[in-house]
């Protein structure tokens, strides 16, 4: 989806630059053979078939919006990760790795893994037990209708605009890589998504996301393997990077983060740990309905708890197909005369430097993948785009139907009516997304704001949800005010820096901070404001009776008994393994 490794980091971070890919100075990067086209056609035939096949199993609202709540932990877990591996994930973060080195991996590890474990082990029982259809639905149960409506409108607008951004991004990538017409790409992908989500609902979206996840690996895994072969292995690649780019550190995760100026990303470890690792990551992975919806579709509480843990294993592995190709690009990409090819920022692309950072993955694909394999690689990219778009649209349809249409327009209607509304909301979501895509196309400057929009809601929402779930004293007024003022403070900080760039040094606490640091610290401040406001207002208002908080708040909720299982099926056992792996990887690449 539109939020690669993490929500806000990407919101106005380097990966978003992929959407600003300039018209190709070098002509298209690749030419497809009939075999490649056959591979792409098979993919489209399969996703459409799945949509038609599943249309009969999506007749009730539970089936259409929550896939009947019968997904296994594996399916929910892979879908959970796949919905996040959307639009700019593969290309954008590969470009970031080329630009910033292995620091980009933080968005996959500390920016995802702790939050995924927290969701599975701690938060999932509350979402699951409350039987809510959506995250705004939980806010309604905990804080009342006003918080739900605020969150629902924010989320719905954000989903549609981001879906449009993704659609446009994909079309631009296809134009640059394959020379395809932008309108053709937009219509082809959006029509396919509308058909398979509109017919089969969340179940179809989830099935296709699992399929797309497998495809992404099948299509992208060969690139780093062959790249390592050409580079002579990891050690030789590291040595060549050190030799080619003296004075710059591309291969350490933490070593150079004690000062903003000591690393190419211009970030400080406090921003990475507290801004990214806590606020942004927890905000995205535990409150963004796009991903939480996938886990809510699990068939029981244990499966719902296992799903994010299973997903975390794969999330930890994604840098192998995203970050490593970017690093390898620093070593193996060459000009026709054999000299090292230097990729540049989007605004520096010229005849002398025709390729940008964000083209590193297509360049690597074209380098190693011949007929058939190239089609598979392109299919992997398209699968990533479509899984993200489908995630946006299916989440939008659910929130629109349950959190906007039902409470505000028609409170009581037969179940079948809401299913029909959900199907039409899917079509409407796609149509409006197309409009958003063209809006972005004709007003590129709006992109920055659309991307930032995503970042405005996550941190305040995290504050509201955490206090709602773990603090009995939090009141409806407190939750609503905390959410509202958190959003307003985030927007204000964003506009302040846009109007006065020197304000960045105050927001990020250092004159050496770069745009990435701004995202991290803006999230941190808006989260803290949201928490502070919620606490103060709650203490000044009347709390709800304890009996009303059953199923919603830690300490008041009696969690359902779970049958004992062998240790190898226990979520805590696998969570410990994830923690050990996570710690080991961070130490290994310290």
């Amino acid at each position, binding site marked *: 989806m539109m939020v690669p490794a993490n929500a806000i980091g990407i919101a106005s971070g380097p990966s978003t630059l992929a959407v600003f890919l300039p018209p190709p100075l070098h002509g298209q990067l690749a030419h497809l053979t009939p075999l490649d086209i056959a591979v792409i056609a098979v993919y489209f035939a399969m996703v459409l078939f799945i949509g038609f096949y599943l249309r009969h199993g999506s007749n009730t609202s539970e089936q259409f919006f929550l896939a009947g709540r019968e997904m296994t932990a594996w399916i929910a877990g892979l879908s959970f990760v796949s919905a996040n591996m959307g639009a700019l994930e593969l290309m954008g973060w590969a470009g970031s790795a080329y630009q910033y080195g292995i620091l980009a991996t933080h968005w996959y590890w500390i920016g995802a893994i702790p939050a995924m474990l927290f969701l599975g082990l701690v938060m999932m029982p509350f979402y699951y037990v409350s039987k809510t259809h959506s995250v705004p639905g939980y806010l309604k149960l905990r804080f009342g209708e006003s918080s739900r409506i605020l969150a629902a409108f924010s989320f719905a607008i954000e989903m549609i605009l981001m879906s449009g951004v993704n659609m446009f991004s994909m079309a631009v990538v296809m134009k640059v890589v394959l020379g395809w017409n932008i309108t053709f790409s937009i219509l082809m992908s959006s029509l396919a998504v509308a058909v398979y989500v509109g017919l089969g609902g969340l179940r179809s979206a989830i099935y296709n996301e699992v399929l797309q996840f*497998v495809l992404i690996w099948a299509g992208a895994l060969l690139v780093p393997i*062959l790249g390592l*072969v*050409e580079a002579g292995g990891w050690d030789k690649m590291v040595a060549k990077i050190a030799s080619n780019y003296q004075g710059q550190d591309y291969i350490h995760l933490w070593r150079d983060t004690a000062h903003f100026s000591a690393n190419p990303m211009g970030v400080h470890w406090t921003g990475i740990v507290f801004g990214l690792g806590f606020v942004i990551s927890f905000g995205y992975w535990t409150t963004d309905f796009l991903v939480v919806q996938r886990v809510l579709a699990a068939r029981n509480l244990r499966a719902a708890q296992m799903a994010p843990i299973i997903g975390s294993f794969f999330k930890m592995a994604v840098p192998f197909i995203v970050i490593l190709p970017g690093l390898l690009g620093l070593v193996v990409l060459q000009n026709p005369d054999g000299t090292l090819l230097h990729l540049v920022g989007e605004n520096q692309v010229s005849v002398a430097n025709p390729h940008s950072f964000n083209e590193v993955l297509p360049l690597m694909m074209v380098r*190693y993948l*011949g007929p058939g394999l190239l089609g598979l690689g392109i299919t992997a990219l398209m699968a990533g785009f479509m899984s993200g778009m489908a995630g946006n649209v299916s989440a939008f349809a659910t929130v629109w139907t349950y959190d906007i249409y039902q409470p505000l327009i028609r409170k009581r209607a037969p179940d079948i009516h809401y299913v029909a509304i959900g199907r039409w909301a899917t079509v409407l979501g796609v149509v409006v997304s197309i409009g958003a895509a063209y809006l972005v196309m004709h007003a590129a400057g709006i992109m920055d704001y659309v991307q930032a929009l995503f970042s405005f809601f996550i941190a305040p929402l995290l504050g509201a949800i955490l206090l709602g779930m773990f603090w009995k004293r939090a009141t409806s007024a407190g939750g609503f005010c905390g959410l509202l003022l958190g959003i307003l403070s985030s927007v204000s900080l964003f506009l302040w820096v846009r109007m006065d760039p020197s304000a960045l040094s105050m927001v990020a606490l250092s004159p050496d901070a770069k745009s990435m640091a701004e995202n991290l610290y803006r999230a941190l401040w808006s989260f803290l404001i949201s928490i502070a406001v919620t606490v103060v207002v709650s203490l000044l208002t009347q709390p709800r009776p304890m009996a009303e908080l059953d199923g919603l708040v830690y300490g008041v909720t009696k969690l359902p008994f779970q049958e004992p299982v062998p240790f190898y099926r226990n979520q805590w056992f696998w969570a410990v393994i994830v923690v050990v792996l996570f710690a080991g990887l961070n130490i290994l690449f310290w």
Partner: protein
Amino acid sequence: MRSFRVPENIPIWFFVGVLLAVYGALIGGHGVYGWVTHRRDAVVLAGLRAPMWWGGILLILGLIYCVKFFPWGPTLRQDTTGKH
């Protein structure tokens, strides 16, 4: 005459298997053809014959999933025996 109906509850893993098998056959077939005819694709490391072994891996994985998750449900069995 036997009628055919698409069985209910086809697991997603069966679809995954079909897709991988088809891709394996297409890509592996291209690789084998290149190996037999000594033709190389115009890419770096073409001598490694990546399409052949990568396609082979996809094909084997796909077939394993197809067999393991083939929808041997009651609907299919009844259909294939012509009772429906």
